[in-house]
């Protein structure tokens, strides 16, 4: 049977289960808030900056081509920084207990557009540790790059320092709660629709005409809380004294 849905029916389906949608949304929002504040460990990030510069004394004037070359060089460096060669050393020097992969995930390398500055950002649950890793990475990279590429053009521009009142970068409470709300809305609206369309019961006069194709002779409202008033009837004949349910007789 072909069923068509009007926008009105969709809205009614949602309106009917508004409490359910609200409830599920509030629950997911609370869950995400609890996770954010009590379960997830806050992460801090600290960065160090490197300056990549080709120190050729005879070339005093910078030209665009050279700058472009530097930028491309930085792209290469980005990869080198995150390579196991560097990270293994960092790990060894700091005697870290995590794997190279884990370390790799903590470190991100960015370079400002069209500049020769490379930033190494390290994320860790301890800001001091993050600063240590950032500095060590910068140091090791500087040493490695002169070995690997035979150039000595990397300078540490600023060392990583832990600022006072450093705020965690992760988790972001507002964002997480918002995500919770959105997920809750999606789940609850889906649930409302599933409930609505899995309910095959007849509800209104329209349903009767739609599915039964019979006239509605009348509608009786829910009989609720109507005060009882005893109405006793007397029998014309056969007055019996005891009150017995019919099922027990003759069976």
């Amino acid at each position, binding site marked *: 049977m072909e069923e068509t849905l009007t926008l009105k029916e969709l809205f009614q389906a949602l309106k009917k289960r508004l409490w359910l949608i609200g409830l599920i949304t509030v629950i997911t929002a609370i869950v995400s808030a609890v996770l954010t504040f009590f379960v997830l460990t806050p992460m801090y990030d600290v960065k160090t900056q490197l300056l990549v510069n080709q120190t050729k004394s005879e070339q005093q004037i910078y030209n665009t081509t050279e700058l472009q070359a530097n930028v491309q060089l930085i792209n290469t460096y980005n990869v080198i920084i995150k390579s196991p060669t560097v990270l293994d050393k960092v790990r060894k020097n700091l005697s870290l207990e995590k794997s190279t992969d884990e370390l790799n995930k903590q470190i991100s390398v960015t370079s400002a557009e069209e500049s020769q500055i490379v930033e190494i950002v390290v994320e860790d649950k301890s800001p001091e540790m993050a600063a240590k890793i950032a500095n060590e990475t910068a140091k090791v990279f500087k040493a490695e790059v002169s070995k690997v590429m035979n150039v000595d053009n990397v300078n540490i521009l600023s060392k990583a320092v832990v600022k006072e009142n450093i705020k965690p970068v992760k988790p972001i409470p507002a964002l997480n709660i918002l995500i919770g709300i959105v997920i809750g809305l999606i789940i609850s609206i889906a649930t409302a629709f599933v409930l609505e369309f899995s309910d095959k*019961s007849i509800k209104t006069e329209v349903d009767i005409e739609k599915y*039964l194709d019979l*006239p509605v002779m*009348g*509608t009786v409202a*829910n009989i609720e809380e*109507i005060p009882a008033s005893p109405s006793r009837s007397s029998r014309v004949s056969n007055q019996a004294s005891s009150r017995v349910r*019919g099922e027990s*007789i*003759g069976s």
Partner: protein
Amino acid sequence: MARKKNQINDKALTVKRRLVAHTNPKLPVAEQYRTIRSNIQFSSLDEDIRSLVMTSSGPGEGKSTTAANLAIVYAQQGKKVLLVDADLRKPTAHFSFRLENHIGFTNVLTKKTKLLEAVYQTDIPNLSILTSGPIPPNPSELLASKNMDELLEIMYENFDFILFDTPPTLAVTDAQILSNKAEATLLVVSSGTTDRNAAQKAKELLTNAKARLLGVILNNRKIESKDYYYYYGNN
């Protein structure tokens, strides 16, 4: 799931089952029964319907309550009404009207008792009730028998309007048999409970029995406040 729901509903109905049309005739619900009465009367042009079968697809959808109240509003109109509890498997009319059920429909059907001796005269003027009587082992056969046809004739002679409260259509065939013999049939559908497939099946069964299906009564309809007629004359 559906079965459980029905059981709860059934129980709730037993508690709530009231003869609203008699006890609170001014309630909007009572007015709704009167509307049904009018609609039944308007649905037959030439002559009044003299016998009506009340049935539903499943149990606990409000057949007995509707039948009882409809019988009351018919009686209030001055017609001699007989309400027959033809649900020989799970009779309820004697609960609704607080009657004994030693002698009833089955006794009359088996010709053990005369109809008028088995009929109760209720407090409600013009309303008589025939309770189910003892539960027979073979309700369907009893209803299909020739005795039933003869009994129906006797009923027509003595009463203006006969209302049969029957078992659910999908459960047993009793309603089909009776609806074939009676002049008209009404299907009770409980809003939010009756499955649309079950209702369609019930309609099919009744149509197969060559019942004259007048229409549907939508029971337990949730009334929204915007339905103004609900409050009309109710202040």
